[in-house]
């Protein structure tokens, strides 16, 4: 078999293999059992003391959500102030970057707080090292921690017999950072540094190029930032070109390490669900359902890229493989795997230009983000998946003649109402956002020429991608779109906020109401979740609910482009 494909299979299997023990470890952290990172205890105690929080107090869903929102508002305000007033702090700014334009500061602060890391700026030409480390890197930790903590609350809610306490959000947030994200980031950062990713505090360096000219090369404390960007499904790169930049992703080995890091925690959280609730088989079914979709999407994307651009074939080129926008170090297959990984997990880092992928491959990336639950972002991916499970359980339950239940808890009007709202939200944000920008671009020629560099179907795809990436808190860009304008900064900012917090609050509200319900014992008449039939229902619900809503716009974007080649 083609070595490129073997590499892809290796990365995928390695991620799954590492995710299993990590899932086990995370459950121990969530439950407060003894782990090897207990030496973090004093540091955590200090944090709790400063914050005045009692980590052992179990709170109900509303109290936890209040804590989550208040903390995140705090993160946002601090980030916004730092960016808007970047010139004021005196150190770690060797290149002397100034204050940010307010709408860009707003967009970026939202983007990093919401774990989106959509970047309408370029790191090396706008952010001081102070900003990179203490704003961006810091937020990449705590926003990922927020997601993981929310997911742990959900696990506890599913486990509750009939009590409202879900655990303590603040405790889980801190420990997710200190005991899960930090150790993993250190390991990855070391791998990256060994392979050549820079970690220094120097300004632009002048180097002599092979042709004999001189060039200014940006560096900085990149390795730690790249590590957390991958592990926390953040995607906010140190440099503008993200992991296509040789400093962020020096060689094939780092490409493997980073790609595994993208998938690792999202996969591990699915296993963690199994370990936490004792439903390992169900966890395997969930990961199976996700993997079926994932592998299918990777296969489509790879075959599209490898078959390449039909225009090339017409020109009589011997190798039609679509290498435009790709790093030759990695090749088409590894780029497709990364593309599907990063969009499936709401990571958003790139190792190739998504804009330059063939239309259907780009369509797959969009589809990944429409679903946003194939492994998904750290914590939130599983939370999104949970909403699909609720809908699937509701429909499958009816089909066997029982009022629907999930893990012994009855799914009633209240739960369905919230799940329905969350399901509407994603298409609403994406489609209305894209519709507004399409309308403006169609009516105002000057706006169109400012934003769109590829008119027609591809232009529509670019706008669609930008809103999808925002709503899915992904952060990757289809590029090619002139997006650093007040319109995009503000619109995307709002979409990111709604797309981040409502899909956390909604499912947690469902959990809040399930947690206090009595558990119905399972009988021969109960819906068996660990069966191929339920897996089929789940896949159908995911495809029909998430994908069908976007079929018409896909037909006008990537599909029209594909058929018009």
């Amino acid at each position, binding site marked *: 078999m083609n070595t490129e494909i073997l590499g892809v299979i290796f990365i995928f299997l390695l991620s799954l293999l590492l995710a299993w023990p990590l899932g086990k470890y995370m459950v121990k952290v969530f439950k407060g059992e003894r782990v090897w990172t207990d030496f973090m205890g004093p540091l955590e105690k200090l944090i709790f003391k400063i914050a005045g929080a009692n980590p052992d107090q179990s709170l109900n869903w509303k109290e936890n959500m209040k804590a989550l929102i208040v903390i995140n508002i705090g993160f946002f305000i601090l980030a916004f102030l730092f960016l808007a007033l970047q010139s004021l702090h005196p150190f770690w700014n060797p290149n002397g970057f100034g204050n940010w334009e307010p709408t860009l500061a707003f967009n970026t602060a939202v983007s990093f707080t919401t774990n989106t890391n959509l970047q309408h700026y370029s790191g090396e030409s706008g952010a001081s090292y102070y900003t990179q480390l203490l704003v961006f890197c810091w937020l990449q930790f705590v926003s990922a921690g927020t997601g993981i903590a929310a997911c742990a609350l959900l696990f506890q809610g599913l486990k509750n017999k009939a009590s409202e306490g879900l655990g303590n959000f603040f405790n889980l947030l801190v420990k997710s950072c200190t005991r899960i994200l930090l150790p993993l980031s250190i390991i990855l950062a070391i791998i990256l540094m060994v392979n050549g990713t820079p970690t220094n505090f120097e300004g632009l360096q002048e180097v002599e190029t092979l042709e004999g000219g001189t060039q200014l090369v940006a560096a900085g404390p990149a390795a730690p930032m790249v590590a957390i960007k991958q592990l926390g499904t953040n995607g906010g790169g140190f440099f503008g070109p993200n992991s296509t930049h040789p400093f962020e992703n020096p060689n094939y080995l780092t490409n493997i390490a980073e790609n595994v890091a993208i998938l690792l925690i999202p996969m591990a959280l699915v296993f963690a669900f199994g370990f936490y609730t004792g439903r390992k088989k169900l966890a395997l079914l969930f990961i199976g359902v996700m993997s079926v979709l994932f592998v299918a999407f990777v296969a489509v994307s790879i075959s599209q890229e490898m078959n390449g651009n039909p225009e090339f074939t017409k020109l009589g080129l011997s190798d039609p493989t679509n290498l435009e926008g790709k790093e030759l170090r990695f090749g088409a297959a590894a780029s497709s795997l990364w593309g599907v990984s990063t969009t499936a997990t709401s990571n958003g880092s790139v190792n190739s230009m998504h804009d330059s992928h063939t239309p259907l491959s780009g369509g797959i990336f969009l589809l990944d983000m429409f679903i946003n639950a194939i492994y998904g972002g750290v914590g939130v991916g599983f939370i999104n998946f949970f909403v699909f499970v609720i809908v699937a359980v509701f429909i499958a339950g009816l*089909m066997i003649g029982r009022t629907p239940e999930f893990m012994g808890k009855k799914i009633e009007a209240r739960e*369905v109402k919230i799940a329905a709202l969350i*399901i509407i939200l994603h298409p609403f944000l994406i489609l209305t956002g894209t519709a507004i920008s*399409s309308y403006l671009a169609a009516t105002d020629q000057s706006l169109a020429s400012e934003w769109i560099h590829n008119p027609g179907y591809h232009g529509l795809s670019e706008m669609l991608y930008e809103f999808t990436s925002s709503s899915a808190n992904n952060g990757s860009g289809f590029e090619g779109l002139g997006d650093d304008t007040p319109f995009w900064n503000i619109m995307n900012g709002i979409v990111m906020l709604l797309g981040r917090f409502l899909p956390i609050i909604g499912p947690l509200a469902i959990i809040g109401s399930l947690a206090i319900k*009595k558990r119905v014992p399972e009988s021969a008449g*109960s*819906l068996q979740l660990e069966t191929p039939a339920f897996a089929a*229902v789940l896949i159908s619900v995911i495809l029909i609910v998430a994908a069908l809503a976007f079929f*018409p716009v896909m037909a*006008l974007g990537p599909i029209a482009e594909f058929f018009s080649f």
Partner: protein
Amino acid sequence: MNNKNNQVNTSQAFKEAFIKLNPSYMIKNPVMFTVELGTLIMLVVTIVSMVSQNDFLGNFGYNLTITLLLFLTVLLGNFAEAIAEARGKAQADTLRKTRQDTPARLLTNGKEEVVSSASLKKGDLFVCEANDIIPADGEIVEGLASIDESAITGESAPVIREAGSDQNTVIGGTRVLSDRIVISVSSNPGESFLDKMIALVEGANRQKTPNEIALTILLAAFTLVFLIVTVTLKPFADFLNVSLSLAALVSLFVCLIPTTIGGLLSAIGIAGMDRALKANIIAKSGKAVETAGDIDVLLLDKTGTITIGNRKATAFINAPGVPMEDLVKASVLGSLADTTPEGKSVVELARKKENATYEAPRSSRFIDFSAETRMSGIDLPDGTSIRKGAWDTIKKWSVKSSTSDLDFLEEEVTKIAGKGGTPLAVSVNELAIGVIQLEDIIKPGIQQRFARLRKMGVKTVMVTGDNPLTAKFIAELAGVDDFIAEAKPEDKMNYIKNEQKEGKLVAMMGDGTNDAPALAQADVGVAMNSGTQAAKEAANMVDLDSDPTKLLEVVEIGKQLLITRGNITTFSIANDVAKYFAIVPALFAASIPGLAALDLMGLSSPESAILSAVIFNALIIPALIPLALKGSKYRPIGASALLSRNLLIYGLGGVILPFIGIKAIDLVVSLFI
């Protein structure tokens, strides 16, 4: 229901379908309400397109066709509901016929006066004698009578009703066969228990059930998503300079939203209650029917449900050296005064098996059973005293028996008990002479019914007054999962509460006033119509046939209701795939020729494609009305197998069928345009 009746129903239902177009009524069904709105929009577009024409407005003839088709869709949805209601009404009318105006002999201050039954008020007293039709529901306050309830229950054997007993209620429309009774009216005209229930079934007071509400919310969400999808399509098209007609957009919307389940949802709910009614069960609410499908535990009385009637004598076993004839004679004489079913069955067995009848000599003294002696029997004039009773007691009393005789009999007694029978020992003049074997006769086919319930995941519990040993034997024989032996009314209550504490749903059937608390406690309580008013008030269903095995049917009806809803929902959503492939290429065919590749069905023209999809969408509603009314069949094949089966038929079928249907309609439509 005969054919002629059906005809009348259909035209009435058609009228109803128009009346239901009232938006204030339609809004209760969000899916169909949006279709009605779509129809109105298209009506306006059609009128405007008469005078001005552009790409967006489209041409008049086409718009008119789409408008009419959308109107048809709404109408068919309403029609489905109306026809379900009409069927309910027909059922209710049959019931009501038995309650026509009859003369009543009103009793005021001891004087009788004939009035119309319609004027009877709660608390009025009236008299009924042999051959009178009882004019209203009530409780007997004086006397006892045998009553023919066949008009209500279909059961031809008369029943005895007596003042002061549990069996003191009478139902209006039934006929007194003998004796004279005074009855107190239990409700005002039109408010009797049955009246209220009939009104419920007729749909006038029907309330949405919790599951129906949840499903409506989910369907409304889908509708909203597709509204967003269609509305935003316009600016996308504008951006690409692609022309789009409003008619096509509205058609796309109507085809995508789940109109099939939206149009049939309430029909399914009403039909569920109708099915219960057809089985002669009146459900007080749709919720009760729905809950029945979820039942985890079923409490069944042994007598009448699991066994036929009461215990019966099935054999005489004589002690060594005692002639069989002597034992039979003593047994019969000792049982003559015993009016219990067991006692009667001894006399019957003697007559049938041994062809022996005996009469007690005059001036014999009957000894009734008392808690003190725990024996009953007879003292004959010649000084012979015959006693029968439980073995322990008789053994003690039979002081003259030899040890070997007693040992022999004791062995027999143990054998009988071990087989689930009840031994009744007989002793003459303190000498034990034999044992009568009493046995329960298990209803034929009951094991299969319990096996079916077990496959559904329902645990069956037998409630009996028997001792634990006998109870266990019968429980095993009949195949129930658990039993409550030596049950007192509060035992039932406690059992229900314990199961409910574990989160289980419990159903039970009862008739007596002392069952009322347990009936109210149970999640599904079915009262027998022959039961007391208190029991009927406490229950959430009433079985007009007073047939305890009905609980099994109730569970199946509940499951059927949910399954039908689930299957049609799945079908409705699965249909969207084909509709997309019909309409999306048609929408953009002119401007983006490449998208024609998505037209998998090879439809003749864009106009025909859209029309065919809309026609299919409308016609699928009446096509599924029979399924909605009859309900999907419930098969106890296990939850997973059932899910696979329904998924294959309604899910995969729902994806494939519209491809074929739309293509077929397109072939016809293309002949006209």
